[in-house]
């Protein structure tokens, strides 16, 4: 099947198997390896990207479901010279260790801050609770998102 999808502002057209997962389209076909695959069951959130304006777990979205839509991955979060405040916050607050869950966490965090520029700690914990980090115990991820709220606000 043909799928046309705009990823981080660039339109791509590919002929794919109907069963191809969005995460594999992004990683294997488009070479955008910043999004990671972690569990197959929508539990870990290493694969979170935005589909239009909403974070989705791209291991359980078919590539063809993204046809005609926009996807944002971590590669589209900042620019090469200017980082999103969320990215800055993760580096400032030691919000990552191995870096594997980080892209998905940051994309969810950006979604939250766009809707709620002044979240509470509980808001942050709630919004990332569908994603797993094995390194940080979440504490510094929460601090990173709160840092971004304080130092960046809405893009």
């Amino acid at each position: 099947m043909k799928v046309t999808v705009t990823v981080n502002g660039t339109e791509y057209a590919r002929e794919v198997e109907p069963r191809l997962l969005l995460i594999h389209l992004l990683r294997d076909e488009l070479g955008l390896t910043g999004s990671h695959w972690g569990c197959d069951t929508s539990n870990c959130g290493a694969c979170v990207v935005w589909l239009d304006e909403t974070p989705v777990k791209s291991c359980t979205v078919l590539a063809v479901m993204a046809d005609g839509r926009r996807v944002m991955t971590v590669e589209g979060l900042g620019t090469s010279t200017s980082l999103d405040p969320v990215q800055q916050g993760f580096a400032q607050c030691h919000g990552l260790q191995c870096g594997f869950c980080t892209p998905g966490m940051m994309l969810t965090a950006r979604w939250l801050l766009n809707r709620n520029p002044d979240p509470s700690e509980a808001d942050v914990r709630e919004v990332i609770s569908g994603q797993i980090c094995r390194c940080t115990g979440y504490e510094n991820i929460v601090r990173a998102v709160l840092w971004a709220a304080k130092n960046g606000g809405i893009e």
Partner: protein
Amino acid sequence: MRDHEQDGRETGPYGAIPRKEDARFVRGQGTFVDDISLPGMLHGAILRSPVAHARIVSVDATAALAHPKVEAVLTGTDLAERGLAWMPTLSGDVQAVLATDKVRFQGQEIAFVVARDRYAARDALELIAVEYEPLPPLIDARTALDDDAPLVRDDLGGRTGNRIFDWTAGDKAATDAVFSAADVTVNCDMVYPRSHPAPLETCGIVAAWDAVAGRLMLWSTSQAPHVHRTLYSLITGQPEHKIRIVSPDLGGGFGNKVPVYPGYLCAIAASMVTGRPVKWVEDRSENLMSTTFARDYHMRGEIAATADGRILGLRARVLADHGAFNATAQPAGYPAGFFHIFTGSYDLEAAFCEVTGVYTNKAPGGVAYSCSFRVTEAVYLVERLVDMLARKLGMDPAQLRMRNLLRPEQFPYTCATGWQYDSGDYPRALALAMDIAGYDELRREQAERRARGEYMGIGISFFTEGVGAGPRGHMDILGLAMADGADLRVHPTGKAVLAISVQTQGQGHETTFAQIVAHELGLTPDDVEVVHGDTDRTPFGLGTYGSRSTPVSGAAAVMAARKVRDRARLVAAAMLELSPDDLEWLDGKWRVRGDPERGAGMAEIAMAAHSSLELPAGVEGHLDASAVYNPPNLTFPFGAYICVTDVDPATGEVKVRRFIAVDDCGVRINPMIVEGQVHRGLADGIGMALMQAIVFDESGNCLGGSFMDYLLPTALECPSPELGATVTPSPHHPIGAKGIGESATVGSPPAVVNSVVDALAPFGVTHADMPLTPASVWRAIQGRPVRPDLALS
């Protein structure tokens, strides 16, 4: 968000600087194994056994080979023809790469399909026909030594039972005498259930065989690339200098990426067979069901004390379930790891433990998941027993610990099983934790709540670990002594490259090792590039696990840097036309004694060392240096943890309200990174205590094969931890540092369990096994505790 300042002692000169590696990770530019893609690369997938124990009658891959996208299928028979059907484990056992005779656990590897894309490789697995002759499975380790138990390892000649080893430590007679004479003894049977490290990135490899050059290039998820290279060389006969392993960015490890797995060897063999690069990346179920698990310790512990609460002795009897192959990774000669540090943090008269390891029809492993080589199990045992003793004596558990903790003047302290604890101030750490917690106020609150029918628990754990394996005289893995090298090159402009043998999985080595070298040489961390995870570019060493990077490799980096500094002194003396004795190292420079304005910094000295400057006889040019560090002893980090929980007796739900952690890991190189390590371990403690367990049914079906079933804590279950620190330098480490990577994983589970059991005290509950799920807690309240490791009807 309540961190507490360190309490005033030496904090080290390094600083909590942001990490150098984060620039790539926050941009999504890390390079993990599955990010590697090579021209012509094929994809591998493994056919796994659906049953726990069966004889293999036949494996027919004809239909799979006919799949249009399949390039090759390897079976056990194919590997046997190449002498690769079995491989050595890190414990000196052998493990099947692809099964030839029997399958011995659910998920065991049977065949390897290589196809042009990853989906096709999976499709073709369905086309392989395997005929099994079912055998009765051995699932319950407690029946492994029965006369009629199924024999797991009939491949081992002459073996008639499932016993792997019997091992003891301590003085049995002295311990028995202490117990006979004691006023009070308490005993308890407890299970430390099987859990899995579950790094977010699963295991994988890209293998590229270059037949022309005779070189094997591997990108692999390896915490120990040098050990893996030696193993591959021994297994395949390929010489070591023709094997290069790059272990790129790793998405967590926690011990899961220490062993060599069958999938790695299959990918190597497949690349040799097809002449093309082959990638194999396991899925989550494969990771949870087949790669190394942790714990599965069935323990009987006993503690003896005087009536007024002086702890006299400890005794433990352990049955260790190692699964179908003994593939644990710990120093040879320590089949139970460092479990015999179950003497804990107390001044005992005697202790004795005996451990029996057995085979079962479950996935192999046992030593993993930040366990410090079984210190996890040991700390859990002793800290549960101390709490039970406190209950029996009617003493406060904090008071009982304070009374029995080793005192600072007793260090170095040789414990009853022979470990020499290097340094510590235990009462101070416990006092600080109690102060942060507001311990007395918490007890008052608990009493008030109990009066209202609310169940709040306060759990304490005090732990001592021995980490940084280890002294080469008595610690090795497969004959490879546990010393690590460091190579330091200083360029003419005074910028440096440090190559190390250990491998970060998120611990931040690129930052902390740069800080170490920068401090020794008067440079900035930005002046020092750290190279790791590439066997062609780094010196030999045993890798990162058991909290050994800073204690061993960190020390090697210091020693190399000090060699550079010593030579720099000679060069500086030649530059300044003085005697080296006229110079002293002060504020990052070699300065003239009595005239500190005169001197030379490392950049000037480095340029001079590479110049035509005439050097004294015997002084080589340049400033490069190498070192191999052979640790004289382990380092012994310790800590005091307090966990506050609220338990709903109607549902059995446990909420962790507060977690206070005071850690002493000696001198802290980067306190921010140290605290991050502690945060992770506290989450591990909540996970293991409350939800994580790899459970099996009676047929040997693994019931923890996905993240739907194997539950991990999320941001909602983990409270914001309250950290404190004391700093007691290690006397034998060159910068006084100790390991920290596993402290909280080791120390926190008993704090959570002690807290829940404390909450349930009004119901008469004295013990309940992990994981304390709502169902398990509810059953404990009913007086009908469940056995957590088996789904028995």
